[in-house]
């Protein structure tokens, strides 16, 4: 198992904030919109340095999405910022008609995704957003795994032409990827090569997959770990190549098991390479209040759940 270490923990939303500021420095057409959550989204630096390019919309997410779509007409590259719940479910029809169907170059940037939002509870913990966004034709869906990768993803989507959903989170988590990485949309990142089982993880679950890989190694199991930061378009080639070697897969995501990364992988495998699969995901449920760690344990999204799923799926191999 390749060794991964970290010296600090940071929140992925701060990676977004730094990336957005840098994108604003690089390109004068980058504009940012926020629905009264500038601090939570770490958009202060952008707002302070480029006040004329920052639009405070107030608590009016539907209007924010529409304004962003309109701002593309004339060449701006709008980044909208609010919590994942208010970035997707609340404004689904606005995104569908004014952004996706109209093919507008809007970057929908969503913080506080999943259970790790914590104490605010289920009203704010969306676990359905990946599914909602990946179903929209032409929408790119990205869920990076740490601070550095979120910053790199933010810079990459500024240069990509077309609608993007960028999902990140609130808690401080290990920073373990290269600060100077080049982010390629739609290109899986091979975290660890192995032969016994493929672990496909996204977002906050990637670090947990690495911890699981270390524990599995101690049990004599050689896990291949793939970071799928881009859920759509899915790097089908990387997943199929890995499954041809390992013959089974565990998918890990901080999302409902319905509609998430796991289902995208299952759809691919069912037509191309039928293989045993286990899902580490929320089991069709809403969340609740609690600390992020408590919630990840209660809802079965911990390192041990990945280890157990890997052992189970290996046994299912013929």
């Amino acid at each position, binding site marked *: 198992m390749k060794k991964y270490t970290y010296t600090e923990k940071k929140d992925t939303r701060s990676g977004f904030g730094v990336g957005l500021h840098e994108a604003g420095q690089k390109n004068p057409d980058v*504009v940012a919109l926020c629905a009264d959550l500038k601090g939570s989204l770490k958009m202060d630096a952008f707002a302070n340095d480029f006040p*004329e*390019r920052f*639009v405070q*919309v*107030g608590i*009016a997410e*539907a*209007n*924010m*999405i*529409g*304004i*962003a*779509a*309109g*701002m*593309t*007409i*004339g*060449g*701006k590259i*709008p980044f909208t910022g609010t919590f994942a719940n208010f970035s997707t479910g609340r404004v689904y*029809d*606005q995104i*569908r*008609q*004014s952004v996706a*169907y*109209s*093919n*507008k170059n809007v970057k929908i940037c969503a913080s506080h995704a999943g259970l790790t939002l914590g104490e605010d509870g289920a009203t704010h913990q969306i676990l359905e957003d990946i599914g909602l966004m990946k179903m929209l034709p032409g929408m790119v869906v990205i869920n990076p795994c740490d601070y550095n990768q979120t910053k790199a993803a933010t810079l990459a989507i500024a240069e990509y032409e077309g609608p993007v959903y960028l999902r990140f989170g609130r808690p401080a988590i290990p920073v373990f990827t290269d600060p100077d990485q080049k982010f390629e949309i739609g290109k899986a990142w091979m975290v660890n090569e192995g032969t016994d089982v493929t672990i496909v993880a996204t977002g906050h679950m990637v670090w947990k997959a690495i911890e699981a890989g270390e524990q599995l190694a101690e049990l004599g199991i050689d896990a291949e770990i793939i970071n799928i930061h881009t859920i759509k378009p899915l790097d089908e080639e990387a997943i199929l190549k890995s499954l041809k070697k390992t013959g089974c897969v565990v998918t890990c995501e901080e999302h409902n098991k319905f509609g998430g990364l796991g289902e995208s992988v299952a759809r691919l495998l069912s037509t191309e390479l039928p293989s045993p699969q286990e899902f580490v995901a929320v089991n069709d449920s809403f969340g609740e209040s609690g600390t992020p760690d408590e919630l990840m344990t209660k809802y079965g999204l911990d390192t041990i759940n990945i280890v157990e799923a890997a052992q189970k799926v290996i046994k299912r191999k013929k």
Partner: protein
Amino acid sequence: MKHTINELEDIVSQVRRDIVRMVHSCQSGHPGGSLGCAEFMTALYFETMNHSSDFKMDGAGEDIFFLSNGHISPVFYSVLARSGYFETSELATFRKLNSRVQGHPTTHEGLPGIRIASGSLGQGMSVAIGAALTKKLNKDHSLVFTLHGDGELQEGQNWEAIMFAPHNKVDNLISTIDYNGQQIDGPTEKILSLENLQTKFEAFGWHVITSNGNNMEDIVKTLEYAKSLTGKGKPILNLMSTQMGYGVDFMVGSHKWHGTAPNDEQLASALSQNKETLGDY
């Protein structure tokens, strides 16, 4: 003026023929609101706006228009075709398979003149505000125009946008409400009352003007006046009284023709009331 009132009225007559023929041909679509807005849309594209039929999505340096109540697409398509954005013959494909002239306006099939999809109601003002903000950032002094149904104002997103525009001094925006008092299920006053729209918009900080949308002279003058009010710190709201189905006697003033197509006999009657002036497509 680019055209005399008589010339503009001749165009309107042809636009009305286009509308009823399009809706009759596919036996679906929304003639009522389309007919009621024929004068306004003709005035906008043939007189008021500075625009080019050599369509560019970014609309840089030209006035641009957003139709929020996308279901009155027949009048939009007719006016776009008649002002040269695409061949009028394409109007014959309205609502038919493999057409760019979709049931509701869309950018998806690449029809020149359309900058955003509309149909799901209440989204157009937000989009227009975005385009207006970009024009300001780009130091582009041209204007953004919109049209909304009155029933459409029942959608809450409008009021987010109506609150935003004055606060942010979006004064390069001229929005028009098609105030015909009708919606699919009946009169707006019975379905969900709009109360006093003028005082509502004024309370939000808009500069409100009123017009008779079925009087060409009045609508042309009103839009010129609206342009003179831009750049003064407030968005402009044109509260435009119209009659749904105007120009066709058996359709006028009734919500029943909001989304119903005429039969052969009714088409003949409607056409007999609107003379062919520019040549049918």
